[in-house]
């Protein structure tokens, strides 16, 4: 089995939003970036993985075991955007609260991570900075020999230095090829650095899931004078936007070949892919 996480045809409906046949997998030994605009379904998917919500249908398996089997959580480390520890706990209380539950909890490793992350055992959770809180969750997630790390917006609100440290920790974690990371974030520059795969979710549907480079090579940023474009050309541009100095948008590599030569095509970033997809979605609303 080459995938550490597999999601097949996941459906979950709320009034006004639904996840529709969400399917993707995280291969062992890699970091999967999970991207999409706000409200696209990233957190709903992650909540389904962790059993926080009950999907209407679909299958989720971790290391070949269904998530209904709570034992599998021995192998999952979770870092969320906000800490889920009691504010008035001391850092050391996190150890006494969590350690009895995990069959492979390593107290020495936890102490080592606290030292490495400069976390004072006697400080209260509420006294920690946002970056330190993320590091505390990470220390706990890495101290029970987790093989899958699930990160939901851990870097939002972190300064560039703290984000860079986190990227280093993830790169180190993934050196063991039996492990995998699902990393949901808005800060796509982090993913451009370390992710091998990208799953792009939009409006509850998976738009793309595969190698990051393939996604980045599939689209181009297109700019120029809109006069040069025919109606057919405009239709092929995703998130077409006209402004005072011309137009911009995103286009698939296949369609770009048919554009007039006086229109410029450039490499696109993950951020821009999300922005143009979002714009296109709004155009069709």
């Amino acid at each position, binding site marked *: 089995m080459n995938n550490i996480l597999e999601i097949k045809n996941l459906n979950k409906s709320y009034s006004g939003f639904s996840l529709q046949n969400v399917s993707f997998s995280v291969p062992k030994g890699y970091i999967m970036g999970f991207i999409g605009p706000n409200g696209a379904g990233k957190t709903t998917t992650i*909540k389904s993985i*962790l*059993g*926080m*919500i*009950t999907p209407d249908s679909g299958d989720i398996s971790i290391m070949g075991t269904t998530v209904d089997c*709570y*034992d*599998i*959580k*021995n192998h*999952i480390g*979770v870092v*969320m955007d*906000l*800490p*889920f*520890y*009691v*504010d*008035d*706990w001391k850092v050391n*209380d996190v150890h*006494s*609260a*969590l350690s*009895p*539950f*995990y*069959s492979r909890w390593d107290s020495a490793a936890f102490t080592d991570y606290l030292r490495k992350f400069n976390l004072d055992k006697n400080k209260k959770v509420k006294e920690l900075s946002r970056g330190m809180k993320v590091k505390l969750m990470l220390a706990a997630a890495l101290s029970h020999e987790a093989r899958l790390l699930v990160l939901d917006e851990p870097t939002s609100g972190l300064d560039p230095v703290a984000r860079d440290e986190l990227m280093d920790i993830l790169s180190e974690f993934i050196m063991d090829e039996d492990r995998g990371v699902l990393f949901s974030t808005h800060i796509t520059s982090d993913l451009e650095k370390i992710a091998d795969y990208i799953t792009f979710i939009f409006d509850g549907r998976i738009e793309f899931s595969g190698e990051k480079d393939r996604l980045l090579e599939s689209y181009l940023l297109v700019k120029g004078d809109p006069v040069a474009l025919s109606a057919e050309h405009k239709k092929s541009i995703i998130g077409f936007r006209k402004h005072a100095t011309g137009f911009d948008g995103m286009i698939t590599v296949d369609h770009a070949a048919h554009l007039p030569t006086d229109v410029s095509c450039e490499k696109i970033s993950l951020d821009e892919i999300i922005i143009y997809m979002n714009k296109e979605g709004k155009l069709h609303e």
Partner: protein
Amino acid sequence: MNRALKFAKLDFTTIKPYLSLKNMLIFLFVFAFIGYSSGNPSTMIGMMMMYATLYVSYPFAVGDKNGIDTLYCTLPISKKDVVIGRYIFSLLLNLIVGAIAFIASALLMTTRGGFNGQETFMVVLLCVALFTTVQAIQLPIYFKLGYAKAKLLAYIPFIAFPAIIVMISAYLGEKNMMRYLESIFSQIQANIFITALIAAVIWGLVMGVSGMLSYRFYRKREI
């Protein structure tokens, strides 16, 4: 260690920051003062059990504030373990407070020269049974709605029980009510073992139904 027991331990860790020795000593002093001045330990025991009932709701209150249900979802435990663990925590808390209340009563009444061990034990037992029954009504409400939405509803038993007693006494009339009570007490005294057995069975049933309801509500609850 069993998963539910581990969870009960987690509940104690959850409320630990709010169980300061200073606060507990202040409360104990106030309760002891009331008990000593009235010359009757029952009031003190009742107040201490009321205090325990407040603490039973603390894991829900602290959990609501800190999003601790998310933590439970990351741990290798089932929702059933969470519910059973919370009931174990509640019962242990009541037993600990009951034991403290008994010791405090013994110390207090011995200084006044009127300590009756058997009677005090019965009062503690009755209070534990009564307050755990009230908690058995509260817990499913907390599991269904969470602390913030449930806190007002959870106090209904404290209003409903006295209200029912007042209504029954109004219906029967004061003299009739006293006659009924006297007859019930004499029946209890004549059949103490059977009464204790029936009370234990009823208490067990209440706890069982409460636990099943809590599990049903919590299983469906999305976090």
